[in-house]
C-alpha cells in the first residue's frame, strides 16, 4: 500500500478501503511511526474472525520491550480476515507495516462509521507534534 493514500486514526492505525462487488472491505494495520515508536516487538494478540466491532473499539494489542499498546479499529464492521502469521513473525510488522504487516480485514458495516480519520498530511502533522 502507498502510505500517502491511506487514512489514519489518531491512535496510529491505518485503514485502506476497497470495493469488492457491493461490499466495502477495510484493511487495517499500524503506521511506520507507530512501529518506530514501539521499537522491538515481542508479542501480539489478535482477534478471531467473525467478531463485530465498532470504530474506536479495541481489537487486539501489541507489546514491545517498552510498552503494551492497544489496537483500535478505525471503522465499524465484521472481522473477516486476520493476519494469523503475524504474531510468530513480528519482524514482518516492523519491516513492512503497510504491506505484509497488515493486521485485520473488516467487512465495513456502513460508510457513516468511518469516523474522524486523518489523511496522510494531517497524520504526518500529528506525528511531527508527537515525535
Amino acid at each position, binding site marked *: 500500500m502507498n502510505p500517502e493514500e491511506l487514512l489514519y486514526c489518531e491512535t496510529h492505525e491505518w485503514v485502506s478501503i476497497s470495493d469488492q462487488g457491493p461490499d466495502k472491505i477495510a484493511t487495517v494495520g499500524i503506521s511506520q511511526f507507530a512501529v518506530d*515508536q514501539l521499537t*522491538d516487538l*515481542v*508479542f501480539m494478540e489478535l482477534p478471531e474472525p467473525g467478531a463485530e466491532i465498532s470504530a474506536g473499539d479495541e481489537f487486539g494489542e501489541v*507489546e514491545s*520491550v*517498552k*510498552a503494551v499498546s492497544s489496537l483500535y479499529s478505525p471503522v465499524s464492521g465484521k472481522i473477516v480476515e486476520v493476519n494469523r502469521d503475524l504474531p510468530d513473525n*513480528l519482524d514482518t510488522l516492523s519491516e513492512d507495516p503497510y504491506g505484509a504487516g497488515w493486521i485485520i480485514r473488516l467487512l465495513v458495516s456502513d460508510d457513516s462509521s468511518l469516523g474522524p480519520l486523518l489523511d496522510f498530511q494531517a497524520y504526518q502533522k500529528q506525528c511531527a507534534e508527537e*515525535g
Partner: protein
Amino acid sequence: MRNRLATQPLFELSKPGRRGTQLPPCDVPQRDVAELLPTEAQAAALPPLPEIAEPEVIRHFTNLSTLNMSVDTHFYPLGSCTMKYNPKRNERLASLPGIVDLHPYQPESTLQGMLRLLCELQEILAEISGLPAVSLQPAAGAHGELTALMVAGAHFRELGESRTKVLAPDSAHGTNPASARMAGFDSVMVKSSESGLVDIGDLRSKLDEQAAVFMITNPNTLGLFDQQVNEIADLVHQVGGLIYLDGANMNAIMGITRPGDFGADMMHFNPHKTFSGPHGGGGPGAGPICVRDALGAYLPTPVVERDGNQFRLADNRPRSIGRVRSFFGNVGVLVRAYCYILSHGSDGLRRVSENAVLNANYLLSRVRHILPVPHGHRCMHEFVATADDLKKRTGVTAMDLGKRLLDYGFHAPTVYFPLTVPECLMIEPTETESKETLDAFAEALFRITEETPELLHETPHSTFTSRPDEVAAARKPRLKWSRPDTEEKPKH
C-alpha cells in the same frame, strides 16, 4: 578477579556423592522407607538436588552477592522507586528476639507489645496521611490499591450505586489501571496537559455518575506537585466519586502536607520507599492504607483496637470487605517502618522530605545542562530528563546512558517511564545522598554524553554480563532450567 566457576548454577556444579558434611554412622536400627510409607506416598525417584561441598556453596552465594548493585554498595537514583538508604538500626531492632520469636497463634494477652506497636503505627499513619481509619494488612503498595478500591466498591454497593469507572492520569504507575481492573472496574485514562499535570478539561469530560474513583499520584511521576488537586477533588466529589492517592511519592511531602487535607479519601503508603522497609527482591512488603472515617467500616479485618491499656485484634465488623492477607500482613516490615518513624520523630520526617526535595533540585540544576528536563527547573523529590534530542542527533538512547552509568559505578535511573516523555530518564537521588555523590553522578553523566555512540551502544563493559537480549528473552523465554545433557529446544 571474578570467580566464574563458582557462579555457575548449583545444579551444574553438582557431582554425585559430594557432600557438605560427613555424619557418623546411624546408631539406631535403619529401616527402609518402603516399609514406613505406603506406596502412593513414595516418589518414583529422588528429587535431583545438587550435591556440593560447603566451600562451593559458600563461594557460589558469596560471589553472586557481589554481582548486583544495591543501595548499600552504590548510588541508586532509580526514579519512582525511592531507593533510599535503610538505616541498619531498624534491621537490628526488627530482629530482636521479642519480635521475631512471636507467633501469631499466641494468646492475645502475650502479644500485647506487638499489638501496641501496630496500634501506634496505625495512629501514626493516620496522622501523617490525615486519614483516620487504617489497615496495615495489605502486603504491598499495589495490594493496598486493590484493597482500597474494594473498600470503595463496598461503599458504593451500600449506597445502591453500581459505578463502573476508575480514572487515572496517563502518567500513573501501571499498577493503578491494573488494580482498577482487578477490583472489577473499567480503567479510564485521563490525559496530562503540556505542563505534565492532570488535564482538567479531559478529566471533566470523563467524569459522570459512573465514576467511582480518581487515582492520583501527587507529587506525580514527573516529580511535580499538582496544585490543582483541590479543584480535582472537588470535581470528583461533585459527581459522588472518591479520590485515591497513590502514596508512592510520600517521601516528598511527609510532615509538609497531608493527602487527607488536599482532598484524598483513601491512600496507601509504600513502607519500602518511605519508611525503610526492605527494597524489592519480590518481598515481603507492606502497603498499609488509610481512609476517611466514613469508609473505615469497610476496611479489612482484623484491625488493632485500643481499649485503655489493652490491645486486641477486632473482627466484629459486619461491613468489612474481610481479610486480604493471612495473619496480620508482613509485620516484620511494619516494625521497621515504626522504628524508622519513631527514630526520626515528626520534625525528622519533615526534614527527610525537605532534603529529598533539595537533593533532587540540586541534581536537576546540574543535569539540565547535560540533558533537557522538559517539565521545568524545579521539582519535588525526582525529575525526568530526556535523551530524545541526543537520540535524534547521535542515535544514543536513554538505555545506552543508563547502561553506561553502570560502568561508572552508578546504578541507572529509571528509563522509559513515565510513558509520556520519550527517551526519558527518571532520576530520584533521595535524601540520604551527599553533595559529593550528586556531583560525581552529574559529572559521570556529562562524560558519558561526550562518548561515542559506538562505545555506548555496547555498554556496559565492566559488569558480569553485558546486555541481555531483551527481545529474544521476551519472544522466546526459557522459563525452566534443564540439565545441559537433556536440554530441550525452547518452545515458542
